[in-house]
């Protein structure tokens, strides 16, 4: 069907190639060249993902745009790429966010511009590779390699406590992923020498082995999502990372964990997934309820949004372990939506931070007087974060709650409390920052968002409204794949 296309390879290697090219421009004397190259590279990276959406066969649950070539023959490792309805949207999302992040960092980053832009583009390519990889080793290589640019982004361009945050981010993630490697090697041994993920889907495994593997996967992916109680790295990383880093971290990197659950845990270990679903649902509900309350008391804007991210990702993991179509599709929609909304909120904080150099909520107040355009955009994203109907935040949360209702009333009830806590912390944040009297004289001198910032926020606003008002084009992509996944999970392996 699509035998000879190389769109996935292009989606992976165009940004990486552009990133390495930017590195060649050298020091900050040629920062302008680096910026233009980065923009061109990111736009080219986004353009090559468009055929993935256009030519995607939405009625098929099989892998599409498959590329298969031997890579390490000693271990039968293949360069095996392919996407189905579950993964294709994340590649588009990632490439889209990368363009915005490059624009958002245009004037803000003045130090080591080439390295900054290069790190983001390389990471974008690696993330695309992670979503497209159908070989366990290839997946792992991309999955782990993203740590290197993110470590540098947080550590070089981050805030005062960046070194601690960068190290914590790296070691936490590495802890989980090393166990993932052991799990993959175990599967390799069990399957008689195959690293193909799709082979693992049909590999028979007894329940006890499944449970052990599930725990290994859980540690790897739960750290990445992050799920309570291994979430503590995220607020640190978010607070210290530069704006673009926070946006990519929230929008894409967190999705890797959830994607891992849906690509590996559920289909490879269906029986363990069922067996341990109560645990997963409990952890998700703790994230939704408890972390929501934690977000309420934050005094730092970025920390508040970081905790809000954890609570929203709790919805994603909840939806996945309900084992019904509403739940899983809702989780996927929630992932996409959170990608837009959290990126937008972090970029909003970035707009304010660039002017005030403070993330402290108490330093703000009355921003609507001096930055009316910005205030209206932030209003939209704040409402989307609360899950207001007609925004993208509503669709995912509503679907997951519907799914939870089919599963158990009390689970749905607890999950639905987010509609109250989420609204409370987001709107309270908005009220304290945007409304009220101008308490800080510096706020009075602020200028409204410039055309570059409006462009970025506008693009995200369109995406948020599109997904909120007319989610069908998005859900059409995933529908058949999700059904197929659920059928597979329901059948089990025992």
């Amino acid at each position: 069907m699509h035998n000879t296309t190389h769109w996935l390879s292009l989606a992976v290697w165009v940004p990486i190639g552009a990133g390495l090219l930017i590195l060649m421009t050298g020091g900050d004397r040629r920062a302008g060249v680096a910026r233009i190259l980065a923009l061109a590279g990111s736009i080219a990276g986004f353009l090559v993902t468009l055929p993935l959406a256009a030519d995607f066969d939405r009625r098929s649950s099989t892998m599409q745009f498959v590329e298969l070539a031997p890579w390490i023959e000693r271990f039968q490792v293949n360069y095996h790429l392919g996407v189905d309805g579950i993964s294709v949207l994340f590649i588009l999302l990632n490439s889209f966010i990368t363009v915005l992040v490059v624009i958002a960092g245009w004037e803000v980053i003045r130090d080591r511009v080439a390295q900054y832009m290069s790190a983001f583009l390389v990471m974008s390519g690696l993330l695309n590779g992670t979503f497209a990889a159908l070989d366990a080793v290839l997946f792992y290589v991309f999955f782990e390699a993203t740590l290197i640019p993110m470590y540098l982004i947080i550590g070089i361009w981050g805030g005062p406590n960046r070194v601690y945050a960068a190290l914590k981010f790296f070691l936490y993630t590495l802890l989980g992923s090393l166990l993932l490697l052991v799990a993959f090697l175990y599967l390799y041994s069990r399957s008689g020498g195959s690293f193909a993920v799709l082979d693992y889907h049909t590999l028979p495994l007894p329940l006890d082995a499944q449970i052990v593997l599930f725990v290994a996967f859980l540690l790897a992916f739960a750290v990445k999502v992050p799920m309570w109680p291994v979430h503590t790295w995220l607020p640190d990383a978010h607070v210290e990372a530069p704006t673009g880093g926070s946006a990519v971290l929230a929008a894409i990197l967190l999705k890797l964990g959830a994607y891992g659950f849906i690509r590996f845990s559920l289909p490879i270990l269906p029986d363990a997934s069922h067996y341990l679903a109560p645990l997963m649902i409990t952890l998700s509900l703790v994230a939704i309820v408890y972390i929501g309350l934690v977000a309420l008391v934050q005094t730092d804007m970025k920390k508040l949004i970081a905790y809000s991210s954890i609570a929203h990702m709790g919805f994603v993991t909840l939806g996945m372990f309900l084992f019904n179509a509403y739940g899983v599709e809702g989780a996927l929609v929630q992932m996409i939506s959170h990608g837009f909304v959290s990126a937008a909120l972090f970029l909003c904080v970035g707009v304010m931070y660039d002017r005030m150099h403070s993330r402290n909520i108490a330093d703000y107040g009355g921003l609507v007087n001096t930055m009316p355009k910005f205030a209206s955009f932030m209003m939209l994203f704040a409402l989307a974060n609360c899950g207001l109907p007609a925004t993208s935040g509503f669709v995912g949360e509503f679907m997951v709650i519907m799914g939870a209702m089919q599963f158990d009333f009390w689970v749905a009830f607890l999950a639905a409390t987010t509609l109250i806590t989420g609204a409370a912390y987001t709107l309270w944040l908005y009220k304290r920052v945007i409304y009220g009297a101008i308490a800080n004289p510096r706020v009075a001198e602020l200028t409204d968002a410039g055309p570059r910032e409006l462009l970025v926020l506008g693009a995200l606003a369109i995406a948020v409204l599109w997904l909120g008002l007319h989610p069908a084009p998005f859900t059409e992509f995933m529908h058949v794949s999700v059904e197929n996944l659920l059928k597979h999970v329901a059948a089990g392996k025992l």
Partner: protein
Amino acid sequence: MISALPIMLPAYAEIFLLAAACAILILDVYCGERWRGLSYALSLATLAGCAVCTAYVMGMTGGEVAYTFNGMFVSDRMASVLKLFAYLGVALCLVYSRAYLRERNLLKGEYFVLVLLATLGMMVMMSANHFLTVYLGLELMSLCLYTLVALNRESTAATEAAMKYFVLGALASGLLLYGMSILYGTTGSLEITSVANALRGGASGSRTILAFGLVFLVAGIAFKLGVVPFHMWIPDVYHGAPTAVTLFLGAAPKLAAFAMAMRLLVGAAGSPPLALDWQMMLVLLSVLSMAVGNLAAIAQSNIKRMLAYSTIAHMGFMLLGLASGVVDGNRLSAPGAYGAAMFYALTYMLMSLVAFGMVVVLSRAGYEAEHISDFRGLNRRSPWFAAMMMLAMFSLAGIPPLVGFYAKLAVLSAVIEAGHVWLAVVAVAFSLIGAFYYLRVVKLMYFDEPTQQGPVRPQLDTGVLLSANGLALLALGVFPGALMQLCLSAIKGLGSI
């Protein structure tokens, strides 16, 4: 087929090297200080000549096993591959360390001769098929290394390190000899092939006595590899020796030690009942090394000591591969496991060359860049070399897409194939701890401001080769398949498997 070949053929490279080393020794006496560059060029040419000889031997034998000197000396694919990599490692050491040694007035004729003779010792170890040949190669290498450590006569630290190395090294040689004598006593032969045959028959000697002998063999090998609890010399010697010599110590001799382990353990005692005994010992040594190496490295502020402890941890990890060959009483997975260990040893050499090479490059006339803090802000001073060091650090930490990851992957795969999942979990847990101190170096280079100013400008040849060496870590990480396959075929070509 073998009889058609010239009798000395398998040892051509060794004979050539010996002759060339003697010639350089004499030439240098007459040429003196002004023409030292000639000795340097001739040494590099000698290594190139050795590579040609080895390639010729490989071509003539077709990679088949060929014996000479009454079966005392063997040429097989493993020996040839290891030798070629050893030449590469030695040549890179010579290039990286030239400026460093000249600035310290240590670039003497004996340096080249000692390096070349140490290389000869390694080559003999790699090709040994007889206990005495192993011992001969080992002593030749070790005596040259002891002297090289003491190259700077005026440095008390170096002299102390050399003494420590010598005393402990002599003790280890004694242990090794004792182990060999026990095996000789039970099997009646010193030739590795016949020892293996005698042991495979199972008729000779009680297993207790053999295991007793093996303990001493393993202790001798462990000393040369520098694994816990025979690691005491490593930090002190690495620290005390001139950095250029540390660079040399950390590279090619590891390949020789790996070859010695292969010849003595796998070659002589590799058949199942006895293999299980030494495998257990190796597992113990390996876990201890990973624990001590990784934990002690965190506490170091001297980069040479840190890398020394990192070596201990890495050699421990490499031993896991050697310990996973015989499973359920058969050797079906042995080539994979030993091939993984060989891949680990080869790639470790490349990583260590970049890391120590950077330490050498950062040292200037009258200044030793020994502290980790000397790397502070390197990205401001030289983004390119900071990137090379970063590649080395991430590779040592085992982060993909660098080659260190595939080395770990191959070894872990062998460990799990052998059914020791818990061992793999222990190994990755210590890798996680190890990642911390490698990341600290990256942190200093990229996140901190420099305390010293001025760009880093190594000599052109050093700069180019160090860059190529660093990029090779990335290139081998993207395409590790060929080297893995080479290691596998080298192990499969062994007569004993």
